[in-house]
């Protein structure tokens, strides 16, 4: 499934979220980091993501993204439980021994997703694409 950034929702802390109906009636949230944030962080070296099963809370950190210049928290847009983690962001390349995070810069909205969360409660205030873009333009 290819995600279009224009149809996604955003937090003011730069996470994007795609909400869909999951079997059993619950909603599934796919979460990643916006292209704007990834560009601002410059060269990324490490992503720390929670293991499947971990409970997360809207507005609270669920992981970390580290660049050569800074470490930033990743904030969950929803209350819920992590059901899947993008292993491409945590598995070292067998040849180099390092995790290749280029996918985050090349394809932040599809291949660069981070976690899938089964929504069990509320959510943060989410912005649509236009509002989020305006926030970024003002910050830039």
């Amino acid at each position, binding site marked *: 499934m290819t995600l279009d950034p224009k149809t996604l929702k955003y937090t003011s802390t730069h996470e994007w979220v795609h909400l869909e109906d999951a079997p059993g009636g619950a909603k599934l949230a796919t979460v990643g980091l916006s292209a704007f944030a990834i560009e601002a962080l410059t060269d990324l070296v*490490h992503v*720390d993501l929670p293991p499947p099963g971990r409970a997360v809370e809207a507005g609270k950190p669920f992981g970390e993204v*580290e*660049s*050569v*210049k*800074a*470490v930033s*928290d990743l904030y969950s847009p929803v209350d819920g439980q992590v059901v899947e983690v993008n292993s491409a962001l945590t598995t070292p390349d067998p040849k180099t021994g390092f995790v290749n995070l280029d996918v985050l810069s090349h394809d932040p909205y599809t291949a660069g997703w981070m976690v899938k969360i089964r929504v069990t409660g509320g959510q943060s205030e989410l912005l649509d694409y236009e509002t989020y873009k305006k926030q970024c333009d003002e910050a830039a």
Partner: protein
Amino acid sequence: MPYLLNNADDRTAMLKSIGVESIDELFSMIPPELRLNRALDIPPALGELELTSHLGELAARNDPAGTGVCFLGGGSYDHFIPAVVDFIATRSEFVTSYTPYQPEVSQGNLQALFEYQTLVAQLTGMDYSNSSLYDGGSAVAEAVLMAMSVTRRPGRVLVARSVHPDYRQILATYLANLDVELVTLDTPGGTLDPQTLRAAVNDKTACLLMQQPNFFGCVEKMQTLAGIVHEAGASLVASVDPISLGLLKRPGDAGADIVVAEGQSLGTPMQFGGPYLGILACREPFLRRMPGRLVGQTVDRRGRRCWVLTLQTREQHIRRDKATSNICTNQALLAVRAAIYLATMGPGGLADVANLCLQKAHYAAWRLAETGRLKLAFDQPFFKEFVVRSSFDARSTDGGANDFLAKAQAAGIFAGLPLGRCYPELEDCLLVAVTEKRTKAEIDCLAQCLCDPLQSIGPQRRE
């Protein structure tokens, strides 16, 4: 020390250059009612000659361990320091440089610290070492915080009572305002009984903090303890004596996850208790929670080997309140001393030092015990330190432990550390440390001093 000139002409010139007429004008923004309006209550200034004499007299009142015969231990040890350590470490490039903040500058310092990290990692059997912390006690506390964070079990920490009492106190201070239960496991037999640990560890436990050899000098069953801790999903934090690693199994090979140590033994004098060297090394999963500086090796754009500060993004000058630690400077100069010491000794040399300590400590224990007046407090294997229990009443001033110690000290012998302050049940006990520097004659003299106090002891002090 630079000589700072500051006479009336200098002061006038300085005032003129900042555009004020007088000292009074300089301080005019301070309201009169807040000013002292009288001279400071201190003695008049001394001339250089008088000041030098005065400081000399004050310094002479010190009673440094290095001029006597030192059987003191408990975290600070009178080990031999080869001359090469001072020769290299007192180069001004090492002495005057502050810990690096620019990631790439000071290549010489970075290389020296990288060598230190490599040696510490090899010595401890860990994957990574940082480039040092303040001292052994703060390293203990930082290691426990790391374990709480990595295991995501911030609620319960176990510590053996055989860990250095000062380290336990530092840990308690670090944890005082966190919502964590710090449980001290009793060690009545001198070491931590695996059954005691088994009963205390649970699925909320972040780690066990143990010391090897422990504060009493006894060798803990580290591998067994590690197994119990890991079975419960907790981590093992081990505080070790780096000299003992010349003989004992590396803590990494015995199951430790984070290894910390007081590095004073590695080429730094006792110097009245500090500054000392905090060693901290860990396994790979703990790396990103490691506080302090870390030097990495890489290549520059021409492919030449070079060094750079690594993982600096987690330090406080970048991450502020979210830093892994806010007390994370390093002891660069003492780390360099440790690197020089370890490189000089080599694995064989370190094994020799450790073996000499072991042999001499066991000779001393036998000499003290054979008279029957003293006996070993614990029936455990020990390395270079041991606890002796006396038959005398330690509280009495006549013939008690303190009296012995005073007599011995008058003869130039620092006979040992009384344990009553930290272990009330060991009030009649002394902790005796024997390094490779102690001679047979000195040990025999200690035995005479402690076991036969009526006989007078001639002065042992070296001039």
